[in-house]
């Protein structure tokens, strides 16, 4: 027992020595990422989203051009950097994707619940991603500033914080396991610290993003969904309160960060 404790103390004191060779690898990766910026396939989804926004569709044969994303009907520019926020018509705090589904239901007559239950990348869910890409792109270069004036918005921040630190599952992981400290990596990928402001706001401000590894466009809902998959948690519902609360927590923490969405990611 004593021996064990001594050994444990030794192991704790003993810190890694070999981070030197990493410098060149990090430089190489930085160079690679820079080369990719010239021509981000997210533009294809942005163009598709813009066409979908203007097109008369759905049972009501209407466009989304009068959709209220929080800054009044039809205002797209600047909406992304203030979401998630509270909406009186649905009496809910909504993120970009769940708000788009509400607009598709209210204006175009689509079945919102059916869209929410559609797997990512299929049917109308794929259209939601393209629409989200278009809306996000209209705020590129603007700075995040989520409203916290409504009590429901403040409460969602507090709940989101608790969801962020909720540890569970067979691996004992929480969002905070990977995103609670500065300067950490998984493999070669930098992990943004999403737990505070100022933090790495760009972690929140890059999605929707084009995923190089699978050639897919991912919105924040799918980003969070795959985080939870890797966290070895059960499946979070599309636009469930936990995912929206996390959006509020990360978004408020990203205050002041410049939006670079839609970005290009590994």
């Amino acid at each position: 027992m004593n021996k064990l404790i001594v050994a444990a103390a030794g192991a704790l004191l003993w810190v890694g020595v070999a981070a030197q060779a990493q410098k060149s690898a990090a430089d190489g990766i930085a160079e690679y990422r820079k080369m990719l910026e010239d021509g981000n396939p997210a533009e294809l989804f942005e163009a598709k989203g813009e066409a979908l926004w203007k097109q008369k569709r759905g049972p009501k044969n209407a466009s989304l051009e009068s959709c209220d994303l929080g800054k009044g009907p039809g205002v797209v520019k600047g909406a992304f950097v203030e979401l998630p926020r509270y909406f009186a018509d649905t009496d809910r705090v909504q993120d970009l994707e769940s708000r788009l589904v509400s607009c598709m239901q209210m204006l175009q007559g689509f079945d919102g619940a059916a869209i929410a239950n559609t797997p990512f990348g299929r049917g109308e869910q794929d259209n939601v991603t393209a629409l989200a890409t278009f809306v996000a792109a209209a705020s590129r270069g603007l700075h995040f500033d989520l409203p916290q004036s409504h009590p429901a918005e403040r409460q969602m921040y507090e709940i989101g914080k608790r969801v962020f630190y909720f540890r569970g599952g067979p691996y004992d992981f929480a969002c905070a396991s990977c995103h609670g400290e500065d300067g950490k990596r998984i493999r070669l990928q930098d992990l943004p610290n999403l737990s505070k402001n100022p933090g790495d706001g760009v972690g929140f401000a890059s999605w929707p993003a084009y995923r190089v590894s699978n050639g897919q466009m991912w919105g924040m809902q799918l980003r969070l969904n795959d985080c939870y998959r890797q966290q070895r948690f059960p499946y979070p519902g599309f636009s469930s309160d936990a995912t929206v609360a996390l959006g509020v927590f990360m978004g408020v923490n990203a205050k002041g960060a410049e939006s670079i969405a839609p970005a290009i990611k590994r």
Partner: protein
Amino acid sequence: MMICRIIALVVVACSVAGCASAPSPGELDRRAIAVMQSSFRDQGIAKVDRLHQDLGQQACSGASPPPADTVKRIEAEALASIRWPAGGRYLGDWREGEKLAQNGRGMTWTDASASPKDNGASCYNCHQIDKKEISFGTIGPSLWNYGKQHGVKDPTDPASAAIVQYTWGKLWNSKAYAACSNMPRFGHMGLLDENQLRHLMALLLDPASPVNQ
């Protein structure tokens, strides 16, 4: 249980609409748990019962660490839970260990089975191990030269017993040495079997392992 559910639903409705007065921190804690319970569903092998927290998971679910007496209790219980290897055989084949260390798969809802034979150990996600692998994470400390740094020349020598046992214990239940460790409890949670753990031990401690060159 049923009553709890109903209360939870009422609370969520309140949280979404916004209540008249700001809720207390304790009330927010309860609402957050209700949100967790209502937001997830079973998918494949990943069932909602994974959200039932044990003492350690619950105590380590905050921005700050739990109180000292809770830390002590978690660590003591974890230490007592460690199952030492059958026959006192601690080391396997470092080559198999390296394969496991590279493999980040297992236990997600896209994995077919939760059996240890279908799981990797995900070590490189968080640790540097063999220096030749440049794609490694930094959430945990570097393990390059782990055995060498600890002066392990012969892992069966009694002089090496302390570090050998500590390493096994850390792999079996990391919380025995740090209550809120970020590292999974590979043995305790049934993620890896004894032989797989022996292979990882060899990767770290075998003088012939590339880690100790």
